[in-house]
């Protein structure tokens, strides 16, 4: 499985950006504010049409895909998602079934699998207004899982969470990549926009660094987030300490 963008130009925001993301792996998109991270994610999700360039999903142009078919294959979690009504967790997660026309029984199974994948069974009947920030973030991710997509594209899913919740959320995502959840396809491809470089370094398989709308580095975390790249893009002299999975940035 491969989601690929080539030669993406969007007036002033992205310049000839190219990325390749693999299924069964976690890809992190990093960069300073205004680098075009969210825009690139929106392009990969098929939500923003580029002025030039193409996005292909397993070799087929994403733009030619029917909207419902695209929705079944690519799940998208927007940044700081607000939910308009005080839905129960189960109803919220059920919205992820909208692109499917599989009948109530299959929908209930998928919702149940998504709830249990994120440990939300106990909270299923609770209205959203009574949840903590971490529980809410889990419920919103479960909504994406209920669609059983092959790809999960999330825009800063960790931004509003405390450290423990960030870890838990990343472990959930990592578990999706590693194994199958419910009836879904094994080895989901996950793409995250991440601000915290240490999170990207320790939890991503692949890192894409954006600066001023251009892809400046792409590859394994140690290469893409090398001290040289960090110095050029963020203007910070820093080095990585520690072992794989526990690296920390020393400035």
């Amino acid at each position, binding site marked *: 499985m491969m989601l690929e963008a080539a030669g993406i130009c969007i007036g002033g925001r992205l310049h000839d950006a190219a990325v390749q993301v693999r299924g069964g792996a976690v890809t992190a998109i990093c960069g300073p504010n205004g680098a075009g991270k969210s825009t690139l994610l929106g392009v990969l999700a098929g*939500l923003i049409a580029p002025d030039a360039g193409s996005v292909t999903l397993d070799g087929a142009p994403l733009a030619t895909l029917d909207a419902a078919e695209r929705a079944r294959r690519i799940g998208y979690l927007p940044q700081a998602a607000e*939910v*308009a009504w005080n*839905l129960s967790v189960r109803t919220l997660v059920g*919205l992820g079934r909208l692109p499917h026309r599989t009948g109530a029984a299959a929908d209930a199974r998928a919702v149940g699998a998504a709830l249990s994948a994120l440990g939300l069974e106990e909270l299923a009947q609770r209205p959203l207004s009574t949840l903590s920030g971490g529980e809410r973030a889990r419920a919103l991710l479960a*909504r994406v899982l209920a669609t059983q997509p092959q790809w999960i594209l999330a825009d800063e899913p960790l931004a509003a969470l405390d450290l423990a919740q960030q870890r838990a959320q990343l472990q959930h995502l990592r578990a999706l990549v590693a194994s199958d959840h419910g009836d879904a396809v094994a080895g989901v491809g996950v793409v995250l926009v991440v601000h915290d470089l240490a999170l990207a370094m320790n939890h991503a398989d692949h890192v894409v660094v954006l600066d001023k709308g251009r892809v400046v580095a792409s590859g394994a975390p140690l290469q893409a987030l090398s001290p040289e790249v960090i110095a050029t893009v963020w203007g910070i002299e820093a080095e990585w300490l520690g072992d794989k999975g526990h690296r920390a940035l020393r400035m």
Partner: protein
Amino acid sequence: MTRPVFLLLGVLALALPLSLLAGQVWISPFSPPVPNATAILMELRLPRAVLALVLGAGLGAAGAAMQGYLRNPLADPGLFGIAPAAGLGAVLSFYGGFQAQGVLLPLLALGGAGGAMGLLALIAGRSGGIALFTLAGMMIASLAGALTSLAISLSPNPFALSEIVTWLMGALADRGWPEVRLAAPLTLLGLGVLWRAAPALDALALGEAAARSLGVNPVRLLWLMIVGVGLVVGAGVAVAGMIGFVGLMVPHMVRPFTDQRPSSTLLPSALGGALLLLVADCLCRILPLAGGELRLGIALSLAGAPFFLRLLLRMRREIA
């Protein structure tokens, strides 16, 4: 979502026959027969009750759809400017003279509604953006309001002036089967269109970007909203004048009994709107008031404004 639906259907089944008995002349199966009872029931009260059900259902459902579309519990079908534009069309018919008015009024009102729908589509139809759409609706509403005031101030004679002002207040008095034949098909068509928009409205609860990622086509949704709300509201104004607050109040009353998705509030709101208008019209009919009966539009505004205020106060507490 089925429980509130059945409950409302049950109450409607009780309220409809009762409403037929109430009026200036009470008709009761247990008291001595009233002269012309059949005519009063079949030609006066039944069409009026049916009209109340039809218009109430349309306004209730349109309100629920609007609140879902704008993701805002304070939205109302009037926000699109379709009702004021239909009102403007109706007011212009008073210039056509008394004889022509019976035919002209609903046609011009529907024309006004259609004009507002066309304008909305022209301004916002291609982008499908909700903010642009709302602003366009507000602009149309204020323009139609200003033109209506102009038409009133230039009215040909004082008699027409008083007719216009009275008509604008909205009522079901003296409406018959012809009005039902005009409004019912348009309203049902509009309800069907809104029903088709329901899944997209559910997705919109997650925000515009997430809704699009779930396969919602914003342009298609916008057209469904314009046509659905336009048909329902245009038909209502064409036969009954301005009736406010139903679309705002009813979705609020039924929402706590549903799972809160817009699609689940649509049908209960239609039934609740039908019930509210039926009961309100009945009360207007039997309230003793010097110089005729209380206008339905005024009665609903009188009841609706405190409701709205309470809503605002509750929301203020939630925000604070």
